[in-house]
């Protein structure tokens, strides 16, 4: 079936540095999402992105976070600067339409460790 690819699966970064998490969504999808899962806790919505713009973001989406999808390529989550509390698994997802009407496909996640 359709796959969302996230590379790398694990990334270690020094606190205060910038990190970019890459996501290759399903090719014809139009909606893109990031979710954050701290160890032992639930997956929580960060942001969704459609038509080149952030449509919604949660309170977890701090000012240090940004997303973009330049030229229809990778959908990226950038954190600058990183903080210890940013350590988590970040799941990228994509869908053809809205959540109510189409299936949302998730990647395997990127485990970010901030040291």
């Amino acid at each position, binding site marked *: 079936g359709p796959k969302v690819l996230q590379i790398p699966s694990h990334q270690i970064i020094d606190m205060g540095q910038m990190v970019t998490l890459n996501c290759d969504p399903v090719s014809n999808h139009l909606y893109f999402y990031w979710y954050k899962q701290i160890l032992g806790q639930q997956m929580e919505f960060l942001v969704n992105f459609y038509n080149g713009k952030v449509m919604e973001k949660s309170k977890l989406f701090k000012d240090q976070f940004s997303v973009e999808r330049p030229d229809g390529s990778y959908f990226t989550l950038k954190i600058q600067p990183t903080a210890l509390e940013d350590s988590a698994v970040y799941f990228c997802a994509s869908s053809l339409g809205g959540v*109510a009407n189409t*299936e949302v496909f998730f990647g395997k996640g990127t485990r970010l460790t901030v040291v």
Partner: protein
Amino acid sequence: GDSVTQTEGLVTLTEGLPVMLNCTYQTIYSNPFLFWYVQHLNESPRLLLKSFTDNKRTEHQGFHATLHKSSSSFHLQKSSAQLSDSALYYCALSEGSNNRIFFGDGTQLVVKP
């Protein structure tokens, strides 16, 4: 705000026995969408079931769930567990009017021979 509660963190049972994973939710919206996602080890979470209609049974791959708005529940059931059902199961909710999905904490299902 919206929330999803999965009371069991871990469910262990023997192959062939019935499965029931509990899910209740809270939302102010009268027409929420409820989902079950399954995540096998080293795999992505993937959609197992989805429902919008009150009191209608939804089935897929041997699993079934019925959305009961009166009790705000969407329990996942299967008549006979298989070893391959061992996975992490997330109950989730969306209001439908936006594109956020609220996830429960997940229930780890372990099926033993």
